[in-house]
């Protein structure tokens, strides 16, 4: 090989990727996706529209007919809408990855010496900032329709952090969906499924006690319900510890399982 590095520096021996390289690779991917987010502001607006409509629907259309024990419905449903906003936003992870696969850009990534986890980690991290943004928008809208915080600042921040942690864990599920479907349209349709199941068979909109008994076990203990219960408690200022730990355990489990699945899918894609 005659192609030496520039400035007399010999080319780096192609050895193992160091931790620093992996961190740089991931930061590079995150930068790429953040630039894409910033340059498509219309997507942020449209992304906020869906949860905003859910908010209006449950606050004004259906809310009057739903009774919840010990409090106002708006304070009951708005924390759930916060989570739904973050989950809906997570679908962009699966759609975006599928689009990258289809366009051939993932082929280029996979032919480069970059760390294998960087493409997925960089994207989920960039999408986390999108979640943060849509959460901020929803908090503003929530306050506008009459939602009120009843807890101290520390507790409120903990509640918001819990939402983001849950959303981040879920973005790995969406990453797996995007890699498995390999097609943006299919990814979109497939991504709605877990969202619907978790949202409607949950305590998000109505108390679980109103459901048939065979459904109650699932509806009470599934990850979204547990997290909504924890967030409600944190924003209300009640005892939250029990739910918070359960939510964190779910998030950790979802993250670990779907990180492993996604990485495997990424490695073997098209093979």
């Amino acid at each position, binding site marked *: 090989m005659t192609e030496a590095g520039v400035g007399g520096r010999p080319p780096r021996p192609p050895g193992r990727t160091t931790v620093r390289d992996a961190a740089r690779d991931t930061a590079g991917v995150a*930068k790429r996706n953040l630039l894409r987010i910033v340059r498509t502001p219309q997507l942020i607006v449209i992304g906020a529209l869906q949860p905003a409509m859910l908010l209006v629907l449950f606050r004004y259309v259906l809310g009057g007919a739903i009774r919840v024990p010990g409090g106002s419905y708006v304070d009951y449903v708005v924390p759930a809408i916060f989570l739904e906003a973050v989950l809906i936003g997570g679908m962009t992870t699966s759609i975006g990855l599928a689009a990258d696969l289809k366009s*051939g850009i993932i082929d*280029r990534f*996979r032919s480069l010496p970059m760390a294998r986890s960087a493409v997925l980690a960089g994207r989920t991290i960039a999408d986390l900032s999108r979640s943060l943004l849509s959460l901020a928008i929803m908090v503003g809208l929530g306050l506008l329709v009459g939602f009120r915080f009843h807890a101290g600042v520390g507790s409120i921040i903990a509640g918001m952090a819990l939402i983001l942690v849950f959303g981040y864990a879920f973005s790995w599920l969406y990453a797996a969906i995007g890699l498995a479907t390999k097609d943006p349209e299919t990814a979109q349709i497939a991504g709605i499924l877990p969202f619907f199941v978790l949202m409607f068979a949950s305590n998000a909109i109505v108390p679980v006690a109103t459901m048939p008994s065979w459904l109650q076990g699932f509806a009470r203990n599934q990850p979204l319900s547990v997290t909504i219960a924890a967030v409600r408690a944190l924003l209300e200022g009640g005892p939250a510890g029990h739910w918070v730990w359960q939510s964190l355990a779910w998030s950790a489990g979802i993250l670990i399982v779907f990180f492993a699945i996604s990485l495997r899918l990424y490695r073997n894609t098209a093979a």
Partner: protein
Amino acid sequence: MGAAMIEVEAVTKRFGSTIALGGVDLVAEEGRVLALLGPNGAGKTTLVRILTTLLRPDSGRARVAGCDVVADAAALRHLIGLAGQYAAVDELLTGRENLELVGLWYHLEKREYRRRAQDVLERFGLLDAGDRLVKTYSGGMRRRLDIGASLIARPAVLFLDEPTTGLDPRTRNDVWSFIEELVSAGTTVLLTTQLMEEAERLAHQIVVIDTGSVIARGTAEQLKARLGGATLEARVSDPADLERAATLLAQVGDVRPRIDPDRQLISIPAAEGTALLVAAGRRFEEEHIALDDLGVRRPSLDDVFLALTGGGSGAPPEFPEGAE
């Protein structure tokens, strides 16, 4: 010179019941261009994907720059560049951002990848457009950026999958010049193409593949020799003139012409192209034989296949008639 930079031995790959590669062997030497020539679905992209570690072969072995494509895949990725069949550039980034990120992902230091991105923009005539979003680029600009990105780490071996498909003739020529420059600087290039002309212009070695198998290999000269070079073709307006026209061409070319009565077509080998064409044209005029068409036809990819798959009348019907 002479060291093997790409060695492929009996590589196979199937997708379900489709045999994409049915045992391919080839060798590319350092500093040379190897063209993989074949029609759509021949298996070109599949082989490129195997050689760039994107796909594992089902069986067989392949080494690139001394690295096994399966066992040493991680090390190999430092040494190669790939510009795939579809330009893999990011529409929502600028040209410069695209290049710098690829440099970063090759683990170049920041100062280094910034300089090289600047170099690539200059060299590929993209300096003015460098800070514009790629979605404003034309197809040719994207293709140049894509090839530029594959060069940012100055790879020892470069893979270009149909680098000029869909480009206008001028941009195609630009891309050809870039490739020639690279090769004169010592890079080994494997490119795939459906165009005989492209293979002829760029490649030191041509490997013709069809439905996953190598059906011919050699230099452009060797392949053309097998084809018998260019032919002169005359199409008469009136079928009654066919015999007279054949006799005339036999005299002009001093060979026995081939006659295709269905298409009212007579052809003879035309090694000395234009001179023969002028002579034949003059004679047809003297004899008052009306022609629909008269021309010299260079061997096309279709002809390669006609020749290689049994030739002549036994041509598969899906091949289009050669363009005049």
